[in-house]
Structures are given as C-alpha cells and as structure tokens.
C-alpha cells in the first residue's frame, strides 16, 4: 500500500512539481496516528503556559461579569447613546471569527481543495467555540440576564411570545442553528478519528471514546452514508454561515441609526467575518504547529495557501469597505455621510484610520512569499489583522452611537470602563481555554483525512509517473 520510492522518483517529481509539497505523501499511516495521538498526550510546555494564561483571563472576566451582574450595567460606564459599547462589538467579532471553520471545511470540501484536510478540524473547533463565546456576549450585555429566557419561543403560562420581527430573535435563532449545526458537523467529521482514539486509548478514556465513536468500524456502508451526510451538512452549512452573519448585519442594517442603515452591510459583514476567521486560523495554525509539534502536517505550503486565501478575502473586504464609504459618500443621506466624516475626523479618528490601515494595508504583507514563509512575521501580521477586524466592529458601534440623528446626544468623549475591558479579555480567555482543552481531548488534525490526502496524492503521483 505504502509505496517506497527510490531517489529517481523524487528526482522526477522535483522536475515536474517544483513547488514544495503540502504534505509528505510518504509518511506512514501508522505514523500519522502516532503523531496526532501523541499531541493529545504530551504537548510542549507552552501548552500549559497558554492554558494557564487563558484560565486567568477567563477568571478575571467572570469576576467582572459577576460584579456587573450584582451592581448593574452602570459599572460598564455605558450611557444613553452608547448603550452597547464593547459588548456588541466583540460579539460581532466572535461571530465573524466563527466563519473560518465553515469556509475551510465546508466550502473547500465542496471545492475538493484537499490541502484543507490537516487544518480544517481546528478551524471547525474554532467555529464552535467562537460561537459559544459570541453567545456569551448576548447574555453579558443584557440588563436582566436572569430573564433571558423571555427571548426563547416556548409556549408559556403568560401567553407571550418573543417578537419575531426583532433582528435579535433572528440572531438568537441563527446562532442557535449555527451552533447546533457546527457542533453536529464537527462531531460528525470526527467520528472516524474518535474510533482511532478508541482503538488506542486505555482506561476511562477508552470508554469515553468508545461512547463517542458510536461503534464506528469503517465499514463500507458507514463510509458511504458518512460521505453523503457529511457533504449534505457541508452544503447546508455554507448558506447557514452566510445567513448568520448577514443576520448579524441586519441588527444594524435594519435599524434607524445613520451609518448602519446600509444595504451593503450583509455582504460586508460576511467578508469581514471570513477575513477575521482566516487571520485567526493563521494565528492558531502557528501556535498549534509549535505547541503540538505538527510541523509534519501543518506545513509551510499549507500556511502559504491559507495566507493567499486570506489575502484574497482581505481584498474582497477592502473592496466592500470602500463600496460602503463610496455609497455613503455619493448617496443623498446627509446623516450617514456626516457619520462617515465623523468617523474619519472625530473622536474616534485614530481608531478608524488604524482599522483601515490594519484591514487593508497590512494584508499586503501576505502578498509576498518571503513574508509568508516567515512564521514570526505571519504571527504578528495575523494578530494585526485580527486587531484591525476587532476595530472594524468597534468602529461600527461606538462612533455611530456617538454621532446619531440626534445632535443633543452626541457624545464628546466616551471610553469603556475596566469592567467592559475585563469581560472582553475574559472572552478571549474563555475561548482559548475551551480551544486548548479541545486540542488536548480531541485529535486536532483529522487523521483519516490526512490519510486520504496522502493516499490520493500518492495515487496521483503514481498515475503521473506511469
């Protein structure tokens, strides 16, 4: 099965396929299992550093939230026009983050881009956890969290229903759907790998994986059903992901605020979401590669492809961003135009310019191969891109509130309190804590798909060589 190649083969290949390979197709399948399973056993010490830091951040976030819960939202220094502050900005950020997993696993799956295979699993996990984080912000920003169940449509004694007209209810439904579907998708794609874990684990872990792998034995019938179901769910997930972020966009586009009431918001949001998601993938790629010693699977050519994809999406985002400015600038809505000018010149100008710089100029670093091959640079760039994307969300919320229709409530200065910052940081802690736990418990690289990748590539090479 596993062909052993002689040097001449490699020589030929070097001539015809001058590019570096996504993966070494000579790798033994058993080695794949071993490498991946090892990551779940003994990661580098950095793992524990990251985990401890996340736990600490999360703890601080919980403290802030409890304080806010007890005292009232006043501790967040929110006020009449600035009703949402960082909470909703960060909410959009996390929702956006969730889109990368769908992009990598579903879209690329349908497009048969097999280089996604070693990295899609953690991207999908990212989707799930960032959705869970985003969901937290919906709760955190509520004045009366303890009554949040009023939003849920369930038959009740009071004969009341939520307001189905409200984009927030759409949000809740869409996020709920997305979270459910992406958990199903993540879990579904992981079943063959869980069977591998089951087959190697011992003790209570064996029981755990035995339970989760649902008796997977890799039979032909299982594979056939699996393929169809996986593809079908992938097909559902793509429009779902698009709908989720466009619904988040309608939170704003449907409303009256000048600067929000823009038709291009939904695609703009979707592009921004993919953008920040891809940037986050680069970050996590580099971290996982180091922490779990995945150099063999998370290879530089895959990073290169991810970076090129990110660059393309960055350009789409830049275009849509400019379109938004242009349509406001040339439109007849004086209020919206005023808001735009305010963003560029007012209180928030530094952040606005930073956002444009980070979002549209910094990605050009990705256009250079030499940059793409440097892990340190890529790490910094991806973090910058994410910061830019976070600023984008902040720029949607705060300047608009600060400069709405009603001049009397224009704010001359507003800065979030430490409680808000604490909760925002706590959300990052919560996310990375969950993510790190996931990586420890579940195989972060899809073993069976890497095998497929290796198999198909070597088959293709054989075909070429013949």
């Amino acid at each position: 099965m596993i062909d052993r190649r002689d040097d001449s083969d490699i020589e030929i290949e070097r001539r015809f396929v001058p590019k570096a390979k996504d993966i070494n197709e000579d790798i033994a399948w058993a080695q794949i299992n071993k490498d991946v399973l090892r990551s779940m056993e003994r990661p580098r010490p950095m793992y524990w550093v990251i985990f401890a830091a996340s736990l600490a951040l999360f703890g601080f976030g919980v403290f802030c939230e409890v304080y806010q819960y007890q005292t009232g939202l006043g501790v967040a220094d929110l006020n009449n026009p600035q009703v949402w502050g960082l909470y909703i900005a960060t909410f959009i950020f996390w929702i956006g983050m969730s889109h990368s997993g769908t992009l990598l696993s579903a879209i690329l799956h349908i497009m048969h881009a097999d280089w996604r295979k070693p990295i899609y699993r953690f991207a999908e996990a990212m989707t799930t956890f960032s959705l869970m984080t985003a969901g937290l912000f919906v709760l955190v920003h509520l004045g009366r969290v303890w009554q949040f169940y009023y939003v849920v449509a369930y038959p009740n004694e009071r004969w009341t229903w939520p307001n189905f007209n409200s984009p927030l209810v759409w949000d809740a439904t869409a996020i709920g759907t997305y979270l459910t579907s992406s958990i199903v998708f993540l879990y579904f794609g992981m079943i063959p790998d869980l069977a591998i874990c089951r087959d190697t684990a011992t003790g209570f872990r064996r029981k755990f994986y035995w339970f989760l792998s649902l008796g997977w034995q890799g039979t032909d019938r299982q594979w056939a059903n699996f393929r169809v179901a996986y593809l079908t769910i992938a097909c559902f997930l793509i429009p779902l992901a698009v709908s989720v972020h466009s619904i988040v966009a309608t939170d704003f586009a449907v409303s009256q605020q000048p600067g929000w009431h823009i038709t291009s918001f939904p695609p703009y949001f979707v592009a921004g979401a993919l953008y920040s998601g891809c940037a986050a993938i680069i970050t996590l790629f580099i971290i996982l590669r180091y922490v779990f010693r995945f150099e063999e699977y998370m290879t530089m050519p895959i990073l290169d492809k991810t970076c090129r994809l990110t660059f393309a999406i960055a350009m789409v985002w830049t275009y849509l961003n400019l379109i938004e400015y242009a349509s406001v600038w040339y439109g007849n809505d004086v209020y919206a135009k005023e808001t735009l000018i305010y963003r560029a010149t007012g209180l928030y100008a530094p952040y606005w310019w930073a956002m444009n710089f980070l979002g549209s100029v910094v990605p050009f670093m990705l256009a250079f191969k030499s940059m793409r091959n440097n892990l340190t640079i890529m790490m910094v760039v991806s973090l910058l891109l994410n910061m830019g994307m976070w600023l984008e969300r902040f720029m949607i919320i705060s300047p608009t509130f600060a400069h709405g229709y009603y001049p009397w409530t224009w704010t001359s200065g507003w800065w979030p309190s430490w409680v808000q910052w604490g909760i925002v940081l706590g959300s990052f802690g919560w996310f990375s804590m969950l993510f790190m736990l996931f990586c420890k418990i579940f195989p972060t690289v899809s073993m069976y798909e890497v095998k497929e990748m290796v198999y198909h590539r070597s088959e293709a090479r054989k075909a070429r060589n013949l």
Partner: protein
Amino acid sequence: MSKVHTMALFNDFEEAGNALQELKDSNLAGFRMQDVTIKSPIEHPELSALLGPRPVYVQLFTLFGAVFGAITGFTLIASAQANFLLQIRGGRPVVPIPPNMVLTYELFILCGVLMTALGCFIGWKLPGNRSPLYNERVSEDKIAILVKADSAAITAINAIFTRHRSLEIMGEYD
C-alpha cells in the same frame, strides 16, 4: 444452516480488491456478496463498487427535514403572531413576511441538518449494531474484509483470503 463470520486483514488495497473480485466470481454456495463488508481506515469507492449497489437514503431524510422545517417553521411563527395578544408593532403588519422568511430559512436549515445526521445514524443502524469481528489495525492502515457465510463456505473463503496474502484471518469459533 448457521451463518458465521470471518474476517481477513490486508496490508495492500490491491490485494484486498483482488480477493473481493475472486469472492464475487467464486459463486460459493452459502455465500452472498451482500454479506461482505469492507472495513477500512479511509473510504475506498473502487472497492465498494465491487460489492454491488448499496443505496444510501440519507438524502431522503434531508429532504423531509428541510421541507418539514420550512413549513412548520413558517406556520408556527405566523400562527404565534396571529394569536399573540399584542399584535400591533412598529407600524408593521401582524404577520410580516420578510422577518418570518428569515426564521423559516433558519429552521429549514436546522431541521435539514438534524435530519441528515439522524438519517445517517439510521443508515449506520447506530448505535448498537456493531459487527462481531473487528481488528484495531483497521483504524491504522489495514483493510479488512468481513464475510458472513454458511459455515460450510468459510474454509473456501479463507482460502481465497490466504491466497491474496492476507495478514491475518479472524473468525467466530463457536
């Protein structure tokens, strides 16, 4: 005639394919091609093809789930709105179409996804339908062929397996 299982483990996919082909052509008494199952670490469509048509019904579930989700979604929402005590809102009609479409769409997808997963589980006959013979090396890099046949045919089948360089043959010995 009692039926028993036997399973052979192969290192090479081609050999496994050959074994299957031979099994198919053998016309052994007490053996049917439907009773052959391949167990492999990755999917092998070309090997599965040898087993003959094994239809997958997952998409029927998907269709049903999606249509059901869309219809009940809209109906539930619209009738909830129509019966809600507070009907007049922000100058919109009581049953507004665009917002309901958004929710209908979400329910369409949700039910579709869930029904697909459910359909797949039903297709797997899971949980609780595990075949008796399994080798853990299948999840690594080996391929296994499981056959259920009359005990009389087993020897012949095992012979075919051995001929195709199977690494190991497991069987039920009862």
